[in-house]
């Protein structure tokens, strides 16, 4: 039979193990591959900061007051304009052709709609840049980063 001292020692070691487990688990999962956020993401500079109080104008037009410096020349300019990719109602999201809303972090889903072959190469790491470990977690760069 175990005495009181041994029992206490066993009990406390069990408690410590249980409490330590989540932290151990967290340290391994946080090492997974991640995609660095673009310069203006919905986290660090939400578009809704300005756009929240504005009435969305879905009329295709030349922007004059703001964002007039943005040119999409060479990227299907006559056909494309802001709201083809940005969602008109939820400004912190992008919108796919099928109407699905995606985060800025998943902008590759947007690019993939036209550039399927490049996406196919990007996904396993042949196209684009990666930093980190060749045998493990890495930082994956987006088309826009």
């Amino acid at each position, binding site marked *: 039979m175990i005495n009181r001292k041994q029992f206490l020692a066993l009990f406390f070691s069990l408690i410590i193990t249980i409490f330590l487990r989540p932290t151990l688990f967290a340290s391994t999962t946080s090492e997974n591959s991640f995609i660095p956020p673009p310069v203006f993401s919905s986290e660090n500079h939400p578009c809704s900061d300005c756009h929240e109080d504005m009435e969305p104008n879905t009329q295709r037009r030349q922007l004059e007051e703001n964002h007039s410096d943005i040119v999409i020349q060479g990227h299907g300019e006559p056909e494309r304009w802001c709201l083809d990719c940005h969602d008109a109602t939820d400004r912190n999201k992008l919108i796919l052709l099928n109407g699905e809303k995606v985060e800025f972090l998943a902008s590759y889903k947007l690019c993939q709609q036209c550039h399927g072959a490049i996406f196919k*190469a990007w996904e*396993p*790491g*042949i*196209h*684009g*840049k*990666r*930093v*980190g*470990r*060749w*045998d*493990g977690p*890495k930082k994956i*760069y987006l088309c826009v980063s």
Partner: protein
Amino acid sequence: MKQLTRRSFLKASSAGLGGTVLGGCSEGFDWATYFQDRFEEMSPEEVQKTLKRLEKYYSNKYKTKITVKGTPSKENTVFGYALDLSRCVGCRRCVYACVDENNISRDVQIHYIRVLKMKDGDMNLEESDHYYNPDKVPEDDSYYMPVQCQQCDNPPCVKVCPVKATWKDPDGVVVVDYNRCIGCRDCMASCPYRARKFNWREPEIPEDKLNTETHYLGNRPRYRGVVEKCHFCLQRTREGRYPACVEICPAGARKFGNLLDPESEIRLVLENFRTFRLKEELNTQPKFFYFFSLG
């Protein structure tokens, strides 16, 4: 004048000889270095002893804490490298990232990577230029081909080394034991890729630029009179990290991985693109592949 006897002569000369030896020791001459075995043949204990000794030597020399690792090859790993020539813009960032990572001499400039400027539609290496210096790259009429050690599977440099100071490690990287190298430069003459560089002088490394994480066969500071070359950043890759040139490349043109892992980036490149190797006809069997991802 006092007569010089046989006894006093022997006494004085032996004292002088002893003094020379001891004095030599205090200046840094190290018998252990002198009688050191080949790194390949050392027992694990000997390796540890050697690494300790070198750490002490370098830390004294550079006045900062320097670690020298001797990490052996990983199991089931053969490193391969692929370079996308249609993405390379010729910015030479890889060249200088490599210099910083690997403690390469700055004053006498040594570069592991040479970026060749090639004429569009031409594969003639004889007409390439590695001294190109335009205001802006990429130039309209050219493409760029970085050349570094090709980590041959049948390396001519290893065959010619008279002291076995260079060999192919199990992970396929051709390495140099800088303590063993006698500086005969036979390997440089035998290399068809001009990958090996000679330290004509003691390498000049600015104090603030010294990389203190080193590997015995990798980026530890070299001596005067030894040959060095690209080693796929052993100090990084054997820990699982990408080489410095891969991480710096702004175009993502450089791909690195384990050739034995069917899921690795390098294997996917080999399966999906038409790759070629430099000077294949020489049967050096490089593990460095070039490809054009865009038609």
